[in-house]
């Protein structure tokens, strides 16, 4: 494991924790922490964890937390998925609920 990447990951985790603590009292500071965390991830080439990815709006890149400035809803149409609506920019992001199948032409289910 690369040393700089490890320190980068630690810093990102602490920044996300701080952002979560501050989002209610002073949201501006929380947004600042989130932007720093995102910049660190980009410079150190570290991917954010799925949980952290869901906490950043894909459209306006701001820190969002369900119950504060975004809403999470599940929908069954076409494919079960979560719809995240950012209340800051109004953008919609969808995350599939079922994990993606590894092999596209996997027919094991049909055979059995």
């Amino acid at each position, binding site marked *: 494991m690369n040393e700089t990447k490890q320190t980068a990951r630690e810093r990102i985790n602490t*920044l996300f924790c701080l952002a979560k603590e501050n989002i209610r009292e002073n949201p501006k500071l929380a947004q600042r922490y989130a932007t*720093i965390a995102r910049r660190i991830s980009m410079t150190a080439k570290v991917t954010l964890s799925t949980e952290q990815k869901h906490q950043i709006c894909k459209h306006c890149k701001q820190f969002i937390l369900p119950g504060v400035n975004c809403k999470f809803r599940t929908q069954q149409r076409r494919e079960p998925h979560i719809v995240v609506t950012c209340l800051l920019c109004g953008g919609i992001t969808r995350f599939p609920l079922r994990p993606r199948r590894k092999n596209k032409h996997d027919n094991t289910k049909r055979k059995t």
Partner: protein
Amino acid sequence: MKITPAIIQGEFIGLTAKVAQSMQQSNIGIKGKVVDETRNTFIIMCNHEKKTIAKDVSVFHFRMRDGTVVEINGKLLVGRPEDRVKKRIRRLW
């Protein structure tokens, strides 16, 4: 916690800091939580008041997350928080 030169790549936002030495006499002794960081300054919350302190003319005492107190020269900390991840220095001790 092991103290190595790699400490300057770490995160300082959220730690409690104290200005030990400074060219600016009035800044000496300011103590509080680090709220924000820019390329050349730290912003410290001291008695519900934001104080902006230049890095390169000060020496800081940081209380790390496990309780150890570390003295760091501010000259080593100059750089944007996202650029400091990649910053390397020669061994000093």
